[in-house]
């Protein structure tokens, strides 16, 4: 298992060719109370940097981008009934979707945990 991060404050956990994607603790704290999440349906093709999900806090709507290209294998259905999971467990039960990677090389565009921490500290 490897863990990666993006400048859009997503985390990507890769196991085999499946990447689980969510938003970081930093991102959920910035967004505040999450009241709605729209996750992509299984089977949809997403491309790196393209819109994949929508997250709405009390304050505003934000897009969640696909950090890597591939086919959506699952959206987190639990978020429909309990979007606050993104606040309480952003890097656990509050995951957004799983992608079957189409291009492993894209992972090299992503940040490591240390790089992400330095990036957040510089914000």
């Amino acid at each position, binding site marked *: 298992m490897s863990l990666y991060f993006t400048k859009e404050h997503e985390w990507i956990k890769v196991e085999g060719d499946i990447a689980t994607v969510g938003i970081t603790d930093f991102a959920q704290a910035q967004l*505040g*109370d999450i009241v*709605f999440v*729209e996750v992509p349906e299984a089977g949809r093709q997403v491309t790196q940097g393209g819109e994949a999900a*929508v997250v709405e806090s*009390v*304050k505003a*709507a934000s897009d969640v981008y696909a950090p890597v290209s591939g086919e959506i294998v699952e959206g987190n259905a639990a978020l429909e009934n309990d*979007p606050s999971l993104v606040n309480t467990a952003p890097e656990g039960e509050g995951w957004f979707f799983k992608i079957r990677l189409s291009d492993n090389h894209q992972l090299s565009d992503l940040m490591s945990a240390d790089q992400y921490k330095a990036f957040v500290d510089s914000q």
Partner: protein
Amino acid sequence: MSDAGERTLPLDAWHRAKGARMVPFAGYQMPIQYDGIMAEHKWTRENAGLFDVSHMGQLVVAGDGAEKSLEEVLPADLSILKDGRLRYSLLLTEDGGIIDDLMVTRRGDHFYLVVNGATKEGDIAHLQERMPAVVVDHMKEQALLALQGPKAVDALSRAAPGVEALTFMTGGTFDIEGVPAWISRSGYTGEDGFEISVQAKDVEAVANLLASQPEVKPIGLGARDSLRLEAGLPLYGHDLDVNTTPVEADLTFALSKRRREEGGFPGWHRIASELQNGTILKRVGLAVEGRQPVREGAMVMDGEGNEVGRVTSGGFSPTLESAIAMAYVPTASAEPGNAITLAQRGKIFQARVVPMPFVPHKYQRKGAQK
């Protein structure tokens, strides 16, 4: 750090020390939240929330003829406004457009006005131009706090004994441990509560005293917005602007009976005509299906997919746990129960017109049972 051009509130350091996240609003650095909007919203509905609204403009209108001059710019009947009573009113253009909404209070020999922060400079210029014979004084050294919620009266009456005798939309002079204060029973949340005007130099002591009461937590702008939305109260610059009239905005209660008949205020001709003939659009409340917020700027669509109106405020209601909105819709569709179709970022939402407030007001009216 405040950005260039943004002023700081007298309580700026106090907010930061309380853990507030500060954002630019109405030309000031203001606290948007402390613990989180949802928690602050619910705390205010169940306990008491302390809001810093010192960005708002506090004005005194004084001098011979102040009442007559104010009636030339406001549609309120000030002749029947008793001492210590507040009234909601509007500054209007000659076309009946809303320049600002405000509270006007008769305070002895003068009137005290509270206007919106983002519009106060323009309001003052407008008032001075339209009322050259009277003094319009901007009380720049005055801060304004609001204490809102069902337990506000418990907390405030400990600090300022006697406030419990005030009823909704009345005010008076009180002493908060040696600090002179003008306190009215009014607010912008739909809850019982008070607005407290003190000198800026005293506001930190008053804020500390109030925040130390067990019922009280500081509340930011985020919850202020969701609370006022649930209460059905319009926000200037969003639900109201110079292109909307009081009739379109469903604020005809602000047009006093005598003034509707006699006129003599800006925009009267158009407003009298609209009162008689109606308007094309009207501000209504919408209950939106589902949880996804439909926000300001979303379109109101007719059956053919044409845009026929606009959402002016919208969000997630923490009390109702569903999406609610205010929108201008065709008057023909404005009756409660009517189905309304909305479009936002290419997605269609179903809504229906519902009466406002979305969450019942809990004002302490005169003669009401406790």
